[in-house]
């Protein structure tokens, strides 16, 4: 492809200064938070390079240099270099597994000497974003072509697996956010819906699996998972197959039967309603199978698959939970779901984080006046749990402000992505959006005790050169692409 310059605006003029302003605001805000988090009572000089706040200044300075440099590199360079970058990045991830020393159980940090360490996982994201963008920009790419779809998925599943190999499950999970990009590019929403449904099953199943209804030998978790399965199945058929008769039959017969069973158990003779539900759900599967035989609509098969998987999830998640997850992951989930109240152990971090944020109140304790974070009651206080410092020192005003700025930042990026002249630019843009959104969702959710503790940084706030550089790289490649939006495809 060739581009010609077709605008009287210079690159400088076409740059999206709003995004850059938001970037600078967030980075400066982040630096103040790092100051609060790593403050040392014996060394109150926040500019000291012995402290993370001082070092963070170096990372910020170098990031700004990196950003300026990236703005000089033309879009077409990446277009040509994408394959190379992707392959090199994957090799680096593989090499990391073998050469990285064990750091708190993970093998993702490569020491560069002088105490500086590099985490390649933070840099792989932009390579993947470039790669899937380029792949999907191909002429004739079609999302509903299963082989092409799975190739795209493979492009981000590969680094995900490699990073899991480095025992950095948290960073690996970030790659799931690319599904959001695929959704924007035409992947059926039912995939997101199914993912959502399975999360619900998992949470309900684990949390209420061993609790029982009053006076009935029925597991609350099992009952709801099976009922939700039926409900979601009916919703999917209504949405994608649009056969009102089938929907009506399912509601009347399957739903009615389960309702009858419940009422019988509640008012006549208590018995395990789930047995009836299980039989009904098997019946539903058979019924959908018959529908497929009549209509030959492959959607029925997919929905049937969903129903089967859903029904088995409750029985499966118990297995996954007890046999697949590692001990610390299991405890984290149990604590999050309130099944375990382990203030001294696994719940300690989350509890202390809540105390830090809660103690900030409306206006916060003031810059450098927080105690929870500085005195290390909150773990990882200047990296993963940096939002605690915001909450403690800047209170509700500050935390609310950070969230609002992030929301504008993400919305701005969405509109930039939408104005890209080609699929490549748009896919890359949405990759940036999805990655930031995922980090925001998981990091702040974990600090607030709403999502499991997954160790990923809050972009621009968490201390660390690798993550700051990684996010700067990701963002400014896109900003340069965006600045070239007025170049005309020749």
């Amino acid at each position, binding site marked *: 492809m060739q581009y010609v310059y077709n605008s009287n605006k210079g690159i400088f003029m076409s740059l999206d200064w709003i995004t850059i302003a938001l970037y600078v605001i967030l980075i400066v805000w982040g630096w103040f938070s790092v100051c609060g988090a790593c403050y040392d009572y*014996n060394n109150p000089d926040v500019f000291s390079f012995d402290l993370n706040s001082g070092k963070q200044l170096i990372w910020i300075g170098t990031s700004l240099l990196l950003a300026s440099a990236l703005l000089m590199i033309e879009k077409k360079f990446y277009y040509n270099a994408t394959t190379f970058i992707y392959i090199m990045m994957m090799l680096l991830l593989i090499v990391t597994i073998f050469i990285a020393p064990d750091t708190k159980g993970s093998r993702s940090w490569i020491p560069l000497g002088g105490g500086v360490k590099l985490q390649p996982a933070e840099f792989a994201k932009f390579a993947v974003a470039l790669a899937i963008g380029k792949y999907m920009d191909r002429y004739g790419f079609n999302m509903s072509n299963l082989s092409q779809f799975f190739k795209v998925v493979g492009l981000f599943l590969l680094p995900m697996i490699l990073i899991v190999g480095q025992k950095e499950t948290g960073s690996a999970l970030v790659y799931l956010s690319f599904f959001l990009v695929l959704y924007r590019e035409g992947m059926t929403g039912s995939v997101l819906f199914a993912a959502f449904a399975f999360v619900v099953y998992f949470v309900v199943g684990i949390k209420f699996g061993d609790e029982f209804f009053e006076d009935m030998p029925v597991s609350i978790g099992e009952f709801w998972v099976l009922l939700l399965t039926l409900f979601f199945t009916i919703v999917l058929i209504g949405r994608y197959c649009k056969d009102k008769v089938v929907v009506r039959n399912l509601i009347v017969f399957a739903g009615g039967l389960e309702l009858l069973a419940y009422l019988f158990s509640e008012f006549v003779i208590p018995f395990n309603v789930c047995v009836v539900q299980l039989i009904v759900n098997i019946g539903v599967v058979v019924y959908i199978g018959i529908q497929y035989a009549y209509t030959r609509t492959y959607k029925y098969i997919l929905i049937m698959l969903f129903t089967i998987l859903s029904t088995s999830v409750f029985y499966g998640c118990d297995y996954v939970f007890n046999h697949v997850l590692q001990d610390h992951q299991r405890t984290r989930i149990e604590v999050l779901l309130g099944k375990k109240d382990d203030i001294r152990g696994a719940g300690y971090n989350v509890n202390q984080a809540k105390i830090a944020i809660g103690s900030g109140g409306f206006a916060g304790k003031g810059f450098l006046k927080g105690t929870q974070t500085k005195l290390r009651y909150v773990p990882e206080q200047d990296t993963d749990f940096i939002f605690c410092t915001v909450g403690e020192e800047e209170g509700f005003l500050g935390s609310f402000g950070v969230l609002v700025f992030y929301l504008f930042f993400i919305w701005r990026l969405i*509109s930039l992505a939408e104005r890209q002249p080609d699929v490549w630019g748009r896919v890359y843009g949405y990759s940036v959006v999805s990655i930031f959104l995922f980090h925001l969702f998981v990091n702040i959710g974990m600090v607030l005790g709403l999502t499991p503790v997954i160790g990923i940084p809050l972009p621009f706030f968490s201390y660390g050169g690798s993550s700051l550089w990684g996010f700067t790289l990701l963002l400014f490649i896109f900003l340069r692409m965006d600045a070239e939006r007025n170049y005309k495809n020749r």
Partner: protein
Amino acid sequence: MLERRKFVIGGIALFVVLCYVIRLSYLQLAPNDYRKIAESNAIYNKIIYPSRGAIYDRKGRLLVFNQPAYDIMVITREAKDFDTLDLCETLHMTRQEFEQRLEDIKDLSKNPGYSSYTQQLFQAQISAADFSIFQEKMFRFNGFYVRERTGRQYKYPCAAHILGDVAEVSPTDIEQDDYYMAGDFIGKQGVERSYEKVLRGEKGVEVLLRDSRGKIQGHFQNGELDRKPKPGKDIFLSIDIELQMLGERLMQGKKGSIVAIEPSTGEVLCLVSSPTYNPRDLIGKNRGKKIMDMVNNPSRPMLNRAISGAYPPGSTFKPSQALTFLQEGIVSANGTYYPCNGGFRYKNSKLGCHAHTSPISLIPALATSCNGYFCWGLLNMFGNRSKYPTVQDAMTTWKDYMVSMGFGYKLGIDMPGEVRGMIPNADYYDEHLRRWNALTVISISIGQGEVTLTPLQIANQGATIANRGHYITPHVVKGIKGGAIADSLHKVHHTKVNPKYYDYIVSGMRSAVLTGTCKGAQNPWYEVCGKTGTAQNRGHDHSAFMGFAPKNNPQIAIAVYVENGGYGNAFGVPIGALMMEQYIRGELSPDSKVRASGIQHRSVN
């Protein structure tokens, strides 16, 4: 079509942010305890203990001072992997005692403030010798620490009841005064208790920041909230420690009490209670055991008989009767004679007396301690229906006189444990006796029957007579360095008797020394006035003496009470005489020294 999905993605972002804002407002805006929890996490109030005030006697001799003591502390969560046997040996305990102690520490009902993260008291106040051995080995005993504290030490092995002691606060102490925290010391008895607030000073505090590993990181708000400790104030007792020591020596092997008061000030010069104990015995880890031993000892050495023992005053009570009769006009000093032929006889009543001339007037009656005279006096008073409509009215009048002389109620000495003694009133007899008259209660006139006084009250009567009609609240603390004692301790109490009548009593008490029952108190240096008492008792009589000297311008008033000591002049008079001599002359004459050691070695079983 697909472009519309940007709203879905933007909506997801909005939804996530909304959820988090709701969660944030729940955490930060709803009322909660997070701020308090954060502060209790981070803020460590380090208590700085002030030094406790010292105690001096009236001549400025140091009695009680501070000395370092060492407590062994344990953090149970750290206390593992060490040589238990070695530790037990160093601390002189058996393996069983060691296990038991650890269990007690962890038992929340016995140790409410238990936490496995903080130092808990393992053994209190080990000796300096044990401490130095322990300190050498301490690095091997994981989780064990030493806390240096300030304990008390006593210069003289006496005056235990007056000085009292300090020990760790009890849960009730903490409940009553939130100044105290578990492990603090508090005065338990004597002036250590009654002057606790003066002696203790005020604790200081350093508000420190403590990180999650327990390391101190600095002062909270740059030390703005820190408070310096205020040292406790020294106190000066009115006690003369030399006199006190002599008193304790003379009372050896006897039960009872000696109380001496400076009449002009109400200052208590000595307050002996026997048997007593060495205050040094209650220092250190054996305190609890020593106290249990004493509590179980039938002779009750812990009881401060001087203020907590109520005894029948016997004849030492007679001056108060004489004063009442004079003031009420029942008798006149020189004009009233009552018969006494070997005692008081009226209708069917009989009350024995010893041989003396008869009939007899007031002054010789006091000198010879004539029972008959005082019985007749009371009979005439209580039977005087023209003056008192009923016997109850007479009784009430009598009671008011007694109360005005400091009987029947606590005198208000600045020490814990004072009792009020017993002065019966009309209600009492109405309740306990169906019908009663002067004859029924006749024995109260000679200090028997229902009447009981504390040795302090008897001594105070001596002081009142010495002052010719008034007394000052007796007190053992003379002064506070940088402060003043309570005004109530300077209060002058006037009796209901005109001072002029006191001169007759003084004359009576003087002739008791010259010609009567107290001849043993006579001496060539100054004029002693005295009154013996022989209080009847189920077993042997109690030997009592009340006196003051010199007759004019008295310096000392004294009461001696020896349980089961027999006649008043058996123990009361000689002990009283020696005490007055010691105080007034500053030392005992050689003859007196011989007599003193004789008394010292005479026991009363």
